[in-house]
């Protein structure tokens, strides 16, 4: 059995005789990063809101968020993705359905992926935020209220700044999870990094080169992210507080 290593395949023209294979991989990387970032913004914004809602003294809000968290946490991402891509549009008004189906598939698939990953991750972020808030001493709340702050002001100026600092490390790993989970979207036909590396492998016959490059790209992005987050964590550490436990 022979395998001929040839790293020049990335410089070759692709099957469409216009692009080159390295451009395919790069476009895959760009899609992966784009989806991860957008989904993360959605997850963070929604997750913080839901996390707060889970701690307010208003039972219906807590219950509703609780149901949200359980549903999104306990169904596999792949099923959720299928749900958003195929089933949900089928329940929309016909005109909207047609508009979605006529739009550019990459746009629709990207939006679906962002929505799906964002909502999925928001459930996890929510739980982290809740844990961060609950980790704050109860008397902080009382003290702040006694100082005349309104409840939303207590959250905004006292509780959240502390809680969010505490949960930077788990949030970093949630972000890395979003980044890795983007690969799931290849199942609805979106050519992100993993899918593109398979395409390159299939059309050139040099699957190992393609996979090695994809692996290195994932590795580099993940390392960059954890380094940046580590720096952020150090910068935000309040002197005197034991930050991050390193």
């Amino acid at each position, binding site marked *: *059995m022979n*395998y001929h290593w040839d790293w020049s395949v990335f410089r070759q023209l692709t099957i469409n005789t216009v692009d080159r294979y390295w451009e395919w991989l790069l476009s895959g990387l760009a899609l992966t990063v784009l989806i991860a970032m957008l989904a993360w913004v959605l997850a963070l914004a929604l997750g913080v809101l839901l996390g707060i809602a889970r701690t307010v003294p208003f039972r219906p809000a807590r219950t509703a968020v609780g149901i949200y968290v359980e549903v999104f946490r306990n169904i596999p991402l792949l099923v959720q993705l299928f749900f958003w891509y195929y089933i949900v549009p089928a329940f929309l008004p016909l005109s909207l359905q047609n508009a979605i189906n006529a739009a550019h*598939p990459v746009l629709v698939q990207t939006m679906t992926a962002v929505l799906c990953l964002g909502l999925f991750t928001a459930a996890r972020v929510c739980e982290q935020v809740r844990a961060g808030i609950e980790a704050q001493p109860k008397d902080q709340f009382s003290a702040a209220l006694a100082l005349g702050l309104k409840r939303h002001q207590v959250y905004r100026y006292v509780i959240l700044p502390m809680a969010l600092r505490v949960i930077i490390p788990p949030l970093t790993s949630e972000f890395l999870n979003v980044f890795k989970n983007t690969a799931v979207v290849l199942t609805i036909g979106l*050519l992100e990094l993993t899918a593109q590396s398979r395409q390159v492998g299939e059309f050139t016959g040099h699957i190992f080169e393609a996979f*090695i490059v994809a692996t290195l790209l994932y590795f580099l992005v993940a390392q960059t992210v954890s*380094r940046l987050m580590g720096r952020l964590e150090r910068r935000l550490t309040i002197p005197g507080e034991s930050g991050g436990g390193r």
Partner: protein
Amino acid sequence: MSRPGVRLALLGALVLVIAVATLRFGSAKPDDSAGRRTTLEKIQRSGVITLGHRENSIPFSYFDDQQQVVGYAHDISVAIAREVQRELGMSGLTLKLVPVTSQTRIPLLINNTIDLECGTTTNNQVRGRQVGFSTNYFISGTRFLTRKGSGIHDLDDLAGRNVVVSAGTTSEIVLRRINAQRKLGIRIIAARDHGDAFVALEFGKAMAFMSDAAILYGEISKAKRPDDWHVVGTPMTEEVYACAMRKGDAEFKAVADRAIQRMMRDGDMRRLYARWFQAPIPPREVNLQVPLDPKLSALFAHPNDLPLQ
């Protein structure tokens, strides 16, 4: 992780990658020098022949309602396995079935997971650089499957529309090339397999599904309402199907060729065609009613293993 730690990790990553690469070199070299290890020897030693099959390529190779692999090409691969058994004089030969997709079939042949893949694999020159091909057993043209009344009649109607293909197929190659050259602006969706591609079509994600006509007829047969769909367009390319095997294994190829050519000579192939294309087939017992193409009957009369492109 501290800074030197990160650097060490990076170094380690590189080492691991290189290790993987050399492992491949290392295992490839002795294989070649220490006598050729042919597929037939492997089958004899292990008592197992591993056949790659498709999950969803009706009527060539797919799961029926009992989750058994069936189909025209599957029957051919079983006939080849029987010929291998006869050639090796083995009393028993275990057939091991591994599902493959358009994207995995060639890597799986190269890494020895499967010994033979008979499905809907086009015999062409590009693939011929990576794998070997048996005698051809089918001819089909690439066309479009679309909903009746969609207004799609041929390639030009698809400009600016969404079209789905199965990732890694010759249809994908042809469509991407023509689309780029003629600047048609077709938006191409690459689905995992024929089954996924048809789902995308059925749910309206694409206006048309481009594939070999025979596969498209197979997809219609399992649709909720087969009458809603039809195959349109002038065939854009002609595809010849053959079983794929590891490259340069002349003995194994000879056995496979012998099995296929015998079937063509004594009329078994014609009967096999009638069984899968002109009679009710599982899972829905729909008759595809595809008349025998004169080109195909010419192939049956004059078997060859030549790639068309």
